[in-house]
Each structure stands twice: as structure tokens, then as C-alpha cells.
């Protein structure tokens, strides 16, 4: 099993550009999550999904959108990139809520 994979590893965006961060898991987990981690800080939940077709907002959802058309994939969309979105983005999955979460390697995004 590859676990949780994320692409790309690094990306530089100009202000106003759009992009999609990809996340795939092969563990048949129901729950998937997107977090951002600013330098020296903890992780903040952006969006999560409890299963295909169901998504919900986390603590910091503004400026982002998600979809969950399959169990395996949970892409995160940035529509109009802003410097405040410069961060490391982690995708995670868990079998059910309140179980351990498995994290992907992260995407380091810089918006200039």
C-alpha cells in the first residue's frame, strides 16, 4: 500500500492564479482531511469528508473548495491564490472519525 499520496510536492503560484492539490489514499478509508500548517505552527483543518459525495468545512475553509467523487480521491482547489495561502498542505485519512489519521507527505505552496 502506498498510503496517502499528494501531488505536487512543491508549487509556486502568482497571486490570483488557481490550482488543485491532489490527494489519493489506497487504504479504503472513509474519512479524509485537508490541513494547512504555517511555519512553526500546528495544523489547521480546512475541509474534511466522511465519505464519497459528502464534505464539510473545518476551521479555516475560506479561499478553498473540495470535492469527493470517489473514496480514494479528495482534491483541494484554490481559486484565487493569495499570499496568505502560502503554507504546507497536508492531506490525511482515517478509517472512521476519532481513529488515527494517516498523513501524506505534504505540498509546499508559495504564493507571490
Amino acid at each position, binding site marked *: 500500500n502506498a498510503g496517502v499520496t499528494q501531488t505536487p510536492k512543491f508549487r509556486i503560484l502568482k497571486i490570483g492564479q488557481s490550482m488543485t492539490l491532489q490527494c489519493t489514499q489506497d487504504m479504503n478509508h472513509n474519512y479524509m*482531511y485537508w*490541513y494547512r500548517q504555517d511555519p*512553526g*505552527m*500546528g*495544523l*489547521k*483543518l480546512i475541509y*474534511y469528508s466522511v465519505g464519497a459525495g459528502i464534505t*464539510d468545512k*473545518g*476551521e479555516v475553509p475560506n479561499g478553498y473548495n473540495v470535492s469527493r467523487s470517489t473514496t480514494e480521491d479528495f482534491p483541494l482547489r484554490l481559486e484565487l491564490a493569495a499570499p496568505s495561502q502560502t503554507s504546507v498542505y*497536508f492531506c*490525511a485519512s482515517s478509517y472512521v*472519525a*476519532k*481513529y*488515527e*489519521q*494517516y*498523513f*501524506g*507527505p*505534504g505540498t509546499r505552496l508559495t504564493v507571490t
Partner: protein
Amino acid sequence: GQQVMQIPQYQHVQEGEDFTTYCNSSTTLSNIQWYKQRPGGHPVFLIQLVKSGEVKKQKRLTFQFGEAKKNSSLHITATQTTDVGTYFCASNNNDMRFGAGTRLTVKP
């Protein structure tokens, strides 16, 4: 949603010394999870506590959940250089909330 506060923010120890990080909440937590993140890496799950007063051990690591389920601690006995990293507590009463983490550095 609930907030989990974690202290200290940084801890620098000599190899062989002990280390403790604390996690506190103003509200009762349904569970507490602990993760470790090595520099440049991603968080890795260590353990979950769910019962009031629960204590769990993993080799040199001891995890506690307070009687009121509002605080938790992670204690490392006789630190080693391999313990370097940031330790996070997290809880998901409604959605997942992480503490800010304690960054541990170990001087050989």
C-alpha cells in the same frame, strides 16, 4: 469548536534528560491523540487516549489523560537524538483540532 493549548512551545534538552509536553483544554475532550513530526516530515500518529485518567506507555514514552479529560501529557524518559521533532496533541470533539506543538531539540 474546542481549542487545545500546548506548552511549552520549545524545549531543548541534553541527551539523557527527560522531556514533558502538556496539552490543555477549557472543555471536556472526547479523546486525545498524540502525533510526532520530524523536521521536514509529516505528522505520524503515536497514540490515542479516550478514558478518564488513562495512562499508556510506549517504551520510553508515557502518555496520560487527565481525570477531567481536559488535559494530557507526553513524557519521554532519557531522551535520545532520535526523539527530535515536534510533538502535537489533537482532539476531535466535533472536528479535528491540533495544538501548536512542542518542538524538541536534543543535544548529544
